[in-house]
């Protein structure tokens, strides 16, 4: 009886170790496979037809709220960089413009076409215990390179809801992991559980009409002729939409405005 119980305990332990050591639905990089894509079927859209330019500025009205202070003392390596990064990067305003806003076409795209997936990888780096860039966009199934340039450990935890979640470690400087996101998702937060202040936001789209506002809150989209709903999304202030209609080779301006009272949905 005793031997039988002991055997059951040993088998349970062995089974758990096997389960723990198996990688499950992951490839050799430790990240989940992209799986089925969300890209529409049909003839590939010719991007040379995207001749119209929609540009504009994301303005911020009033005084920007202060960003949360960062306490990096839990990691001596990060602490060395603390003076350069005293706060989070949530609200970044320059020349009255809000940076790190994802601007994208939310409706009106040509139907019955598919869009070629860029083969150029998007790179996100863990540098000085921060994600660089803090916000970026890409297309479904576009390669993503996740790099660790720091002399400390990071884990990359994708808090995806529509795509598979993953959590992998990069204990050594210079490590690179490749992944893809198969389904459109906004926002797709990425965080490091080792360093609580580290966070990034990804916008994954099944079309190429998306960008992120830069210095002074400026952005530019190349679009084919048509009538579009354009959305601007910010991690703290939520999203706003505007309509725009462009003809061939048109240049139109679309400006968004956020203020401290705007809030992102929970």
């Amino acid at each position, binding site marked *: 009886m005793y031997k039988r119980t002991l055997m059951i305990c040993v088998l349970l332990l062995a089974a758990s170790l096997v*389960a*723990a050591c198996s990688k499950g639905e992951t490839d050799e990089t430790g990240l989940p496979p992209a799986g089925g894509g969300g890209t529409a079927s049909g003839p590939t859209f010719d991007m040379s037809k995207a001749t119209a330019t929609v540009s504009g500025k994301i303005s911020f009205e009033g005084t920007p709220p202060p960003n949360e202070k960062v306490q990096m003392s839990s*990691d001596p390596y990060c602490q060395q960089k603390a003076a350069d990064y005293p706060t989070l990067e949530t609200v970044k305003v320059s020349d009255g413009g809000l940076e790190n806003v994802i601007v994208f076409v939310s409706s009106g795209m040509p139907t019955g076409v598919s869009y070629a997936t860029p083969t150029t990888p998007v790179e996100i780096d863990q540098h000085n215990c921060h994600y660089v860039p803090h916000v970026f966009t890409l297309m479904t199934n576009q390669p993503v390179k996740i790099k660790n340039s720091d002399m400390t450990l990071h884990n990359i935890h994708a808090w995806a809801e529509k795509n598979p979640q993953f959590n992998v*470690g990069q204990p050594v400087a210079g490590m690179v992991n490749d992944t893809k996101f198969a389904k459109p998702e906004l926002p797709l937060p990425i965080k490091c559980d080792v360093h609580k202040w580290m966070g990034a936001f990804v916008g994954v789209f099944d079309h190429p009409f998306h960008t992120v506002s830069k210095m002074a809150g400026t952005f530019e989209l190349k679009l084919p002729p048509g009538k579009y709903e354009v959305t601007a999304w910010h991690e703290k202030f939520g999203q706003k939409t505007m309509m725009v209609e462009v003809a061939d080779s048109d240049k139109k301006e679309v400006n968004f405005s956020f203020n401290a009272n705007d809030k992102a949905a929970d």
Partner: protein
Amino acid sequence: MRQNIALHRFALFTACCTAVLIFVGGLVTSTESGLSVPDWPTSYGWNMFTFPYSNWVGGIFYEHGHRLIASFVGFLTVVLTVWMWLKEERRWVRWLSTAALGAVILQGVLGGLTVIFLLPAWISTLHACLAQTFFCTVISLAFFTSPGWKRGLPLVKSHAESIPLQTLCALTTAAVYLQLILGAVMRHSDAGLAIPDFPLALGHIIPPFTSNKVIIHFAHRVGAVIVTTMIVWTFYRIRRSYSDHLLLFRPALTMLVLLTLQVALGAITVWTAKSIYPTTAHVLTGALVLGTSLLLTLRAYGMVVHRTADFRGAA
């Protein structure tokens, strides 16, 4: 029955280490460090026991520290079980220690699974509940190997009561255990601040049930009222009828003091928006209330007798 003080002390030591482990496990959740080591049973590819200390940074300090202390408690449990099978005469005590070993192994597996599957609430909750169950099992082992139990506890004649003291203590222990399960569900479903005010709940005595999180949180508060009632009732009963029997009175008083501390910590947890140390202390104190209630229950069953024929001890 042969005394084995060393075995009893070892069981007691294991119980104390388990309390420390529960606190450290609570810290992992409070600091949201559960996924800071993304692999298991390895740590960033290293063997758990050779993972360099210089890499214990940020959340890794809590998560890896928890794994090591858990391994130590697992080791203690293995030693305890082997020791029991070698020296303990009572077959049922030997099997109880084997159950403790099974629980600690399962607990380790659940801890690993919660990392691999990225903290699903039900696995994390099960992990938290099994921790309390294991703690109770080890406390029981320490109690059953104690010289007092082996010699035979002093018997006490039961007073004429609608609910016997043993039953009342057992019900109190069950209520505390259920309350800890509710607490674990609340904690791991991120409902700890679903009601951010106290003593009112969203400005009302009974809050509007706008989400499952509010329901879970409020259920924990209702549970606290029930547990408080049970503990006060138990204490009052012992003070009234058994105050001369320190083996009953002391744990009852301790339980009441711990309850007061626990309610205060619960309130502070809400008022400080789940500040790390009050929140974690709330988890540990909950375990200590459960352990004390269990001890009291075991003593009540061992001491209080109903029939005069059985009564041979102090009245």
